[in-house]
């Protein structure tokens, strides 16, 4: 192995440690921390790591302070230093897998509705409206608990006026454009087919609720 390759391999290792293991209260690393630890060529190191992670269905995700970069727009060094870097999943999870990482179908669907609704309201909505919307399909006693959980995990943030906003985790984990595009392209036909599935799913949800009550 050439010396240069060796240096890069060591930097990729260090970058992996920094990205995968939580160093602060929140996961992820700030660009300037990587800059300090890996040197000025840290974007290149992360490119190599990202390439490597492809095989594992993972990726290095950059969340810029000023929001998403337009396609093809190259970030400046300053923007990269201020951005936050995460290791995230690259592909899609199946509903079964989502359940395996600790999410109930109802809770995740509730999160999907909440996030989409807040996006539709241009980034902020009243908690009461979100609660009413969720209460249409989720038992009332669970709505408040779920919203509190989304806030606790960092998907949402709430202010003293009862308004909820998207928070850091949504910005890091949810491809908002893909979510909205897919939601808008939902055909009536596919809905009809899912409605029937939903009836089957309701039995499952009832089991889950029973399970949850037993746990508590």
């Amino acid at each position, binding site marked *: 192995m050439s010396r240069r390759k060796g240096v890069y391999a060591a930097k990729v290792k260090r970058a992996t440690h920094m990205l995968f*293991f*939580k160093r602060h209260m929140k*996961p992820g690393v700030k660009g300037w921390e990587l800059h300090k630890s890996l040197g000025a060529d840290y974007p290149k190191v992360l490119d190599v790591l990202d390439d490597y992670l492809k095989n594992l269905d993972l990726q290095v*995700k950059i969340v810029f302070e000023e929001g998403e970069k337009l396609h093809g727009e190259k970030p400046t060094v300053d923007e990269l230093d201020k951005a936050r870097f995460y290791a995230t999943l690259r592909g899609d999870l199946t509903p079964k897998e989502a359940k395996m990482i600790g999410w109930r179908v109802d809770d995740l669907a509730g999160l999907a509705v909440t996030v*989409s609704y807040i996006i539709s309201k241009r980034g902020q909505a009243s908690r009461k409206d979100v609660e009413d919307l969720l209460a249409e399909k989720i038992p009332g006693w669970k709505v408040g608990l779920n919203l509190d959980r989304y806030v606790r995990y960092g998907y949402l943030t709430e202010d003293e006026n009862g308004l909820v906003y998207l928070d850091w985790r949504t910005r890091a984990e*949810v491809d908002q454009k893909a979510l909205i595009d897919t939601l*808008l392209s*939902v055909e009536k036909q596919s809905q009809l087919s899912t409605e029937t599935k939903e009836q089957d799913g309701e039995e499952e949800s009832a089991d889950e609720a029973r399970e949850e009550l037993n746990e508590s």
Partner: protein
Amino acid sequence: MQAQKSAKRDAKKGREKLQRIVAMLTAIEAHQVDPFTLNVDEILQVVREYFPEWKKTEDLTLDAETIHHLASVIKQQSEWVKSRSNSLYTDPFLLEEKINQTGKERMLAIFLHAWRPIVELEQISIRSLIEAMRYWQTLVPLSERWKELAPGEVATGVVSRDELVKQRILGDKIFSEELEQFWQELKTAVEQKGENGKMRYWDFIGADTYERTVERAFFTSFLITYGYATLEIHPLEELMFIKAFDKPQTKARIEQVVSVPIAVTCDDWQKWKRGEME
């Protein structure tokens, strides 16, 4: 004579037209009017038409003001177009309708298509375990540590405000007044010694004595907390600047408030005195 009168009349008319245009542009800037109701070419034509008439400074200022407001409205127009053309912009009603129509399972499938959960691990390693063990071995038992810290018994009593001032626990002015005065001092310092409306944090808090420096750092922290000033931190270069606001700011909770611990040690103060903080 006749020509002079007519030129005067034209200038007056032009002035009125420009004032009307400025009023309209200001309304657009204040989001009271749709920016696209404006005919930019027409306005430029008016500005061009009357420009040769302007001889006085105030007329030329009005002309410049019109162009300035016009540029700002054009910027607003471009931002509007950018926002609408942004791929995330969709009709909120349409989106809401879709959310209401879409079933729970389908919604979940859509979300899973856009959800990329963060990989985060909290795991102990052999190395950190060994380090933790070493720390534990050198850690003095609580009973001994508490012995050192045990305070002696002190008789309680009443202290007057004057006595507190004498002991330098309280200042002799009301805190808010002192803060207000400190804010003015910051504004003047930034104006005189700063660049681009900001100055080095240490250049502001630094004083002849270490005690005075700590006191200034203490007041500065309140200026920042209460929204009279803000910090600009460049972590990589390890630079810190302070900026004064013209009016106290009260930020909405959209932006998360963060605490920045700043150590003001005697070593740092000495470094600053020797000019090594550059």
